[in-house]
């Protein structure tokens, strides 16, 4: 059911870990849904120089986290903002329909970490932060139910 690329990123996830003194940290998902992604970013001069993640979740959740870090390293903050869940899924040669919410989680984790960076650097108001990470699993689940 998983592509070879998903299995590769699951078996050998890239950039697992934490970054001490990260410039942006974002955590999305919740344990009740069975997946949580935590993304750490190192940002220098508006450019992402390093990204690391920790994920509690299924194979697709681990693989999308791994791919997401690969996609954003070297990108500017603005470029990273534009990375969509579809782009993460596509880079993994697709995900099974029931697992598409994992790619949503990856997109949200990137954005949550970027929002945290902006907040820490006075580039945004606190009020904006939740918009990117407050999707609860029930919402995501409803979407999946409609798909299936």
């Amino acid at each position, binding site marked *: 059911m998983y592509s070879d690329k998903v*299995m590769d990123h*699951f*078996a050998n*996830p890239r950039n*697992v*870990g*934490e970054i001490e003194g990260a410039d942006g940290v974002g*955590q999305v998902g919740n*344990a*009740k*849904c*069975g*997946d*949580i*992604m*935590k993304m750490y970013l190192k940002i220098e001069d508006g450019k992402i120089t390093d990204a690391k*993640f*920790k*994920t*509690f*979740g*299924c*194979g*697709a*959740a*681990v693989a999308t986290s791994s791919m997401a870090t690969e996609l954003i390293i070297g990108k500017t903050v603005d470029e990273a903002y534009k990375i969509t869940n579809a782009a993460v899924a596509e880079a993994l040669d697709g995900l099974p329909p*029931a*697992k598409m919410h994992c790619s949503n989680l990856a997109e949200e984790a990137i954005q949550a970490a970027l929002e945290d960076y902006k907040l820490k650097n006075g580039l945004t108001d606190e009020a904006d932060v939740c918009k990117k990470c407050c999707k609860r*699993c029930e919402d995501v*689940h409803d979407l*999946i*139910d409609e798909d299936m």
Partner: protein
Amino acid sequence: MSDRLIYLDHAATTAVKPEVFEAMKPYFTELFGNPSSIYSLGRTAKKAISEAREKVAAALNADAKEIFFTGSGTEADNWAIKGVAYANRKKGKHIITTAIEHHAVLHTCEYLEKEGFEVTYLPVDENGLICTKRLEKAIRPDTILITIMLANNEIGTIQPIEEIGEIARQKGVIFHTDAVQAIGNVKIDVKSMNVDLLSLSAHKFYGPKGVGALYIRKGINITNLMHGGAQERKRRASTENVAGIVGLGKAIEIASNNIEQYNKKLLALSQKAIEEISEKIPYIKFNGHQKLRLPGTVNISFRFIEGESLLLMLDMKGILASSGSACTSGSLDPSHVLLAIGLPHEIAHGSLRISFGEESTEQDVSFLVEQLSLIVERLRGMSPLYEDFVKNEGRNLYV
């Protein structure tokens, strides 16, 4: 992929035993006759079915006339529940079941709710046992059926079937038990258990897939599910799966003759697994009743990790098992059984079911435990939940 496959998912299905396969073979080829045909080739097939029926009856302490072959355990459950509900709807519309039944029972009951029946889903305690007092209280004047599984497929807990049967009989309510997971591990006596209907499935005890049976006690009022020819004494139309039925008969015969020896072997493997896993891996919980449990089933929750990841990593090492996580159940919630015994969602997501069988060895257990401890450590190492836990624990040390 490892070159060595260690199959630890016998609760999902089992391999057909060679002697079972040998018994089945002729009925695919030279003895292919339709049992409804009157010529000798047909009669040979018919005789093979009768012999298989006798074997099933002997295993259940039933009469051969009370055994009806079906296409699966699911069909047997559907037949028992819908058949009794429809045949007795004038008497009442209330059915009692439990929260931990297999979906073959649960979804059938949910279907009947849409048809105007009322269903009570009895809760279970943290070990997966129902409370018989609660069952007694749940019985109403219009209760027409109690359907409670014998042994649970996920956590292995075995219900007090005799006691339940006695209550049902006293109150004059028909009692069905889904014994799909129990055959081969639990000695069945439909008479002493006061069971009116019992479902079973061949592939759970080294028989073929696609064949099951329903025991229907003589005199039970039940409508047919399948309409058509006069097979199974006009109760279940369909040309018989002769080879499958022969396989079921052979498999149940072997299984019932070996129950004690088989259980002893499985129990020893389970105990070894439980001891070694407890020793090597912290923050775990074993699910299911400690004693009243299928001897080969071990269900464990590992905190801070998710079950599908665990299964995929075990698979890479050649170990095949199953999980109750949402990601593996095909739904979005973790197993209804694990939630029913009170596990929080996040713990239920991290569960693993190991089920030992015929070909399992002590070496399998050692390899499993060795790999499992490495994998759990690796997954925890990348879990933000574990990270938080360790940091909080660390903080507590300094308070």
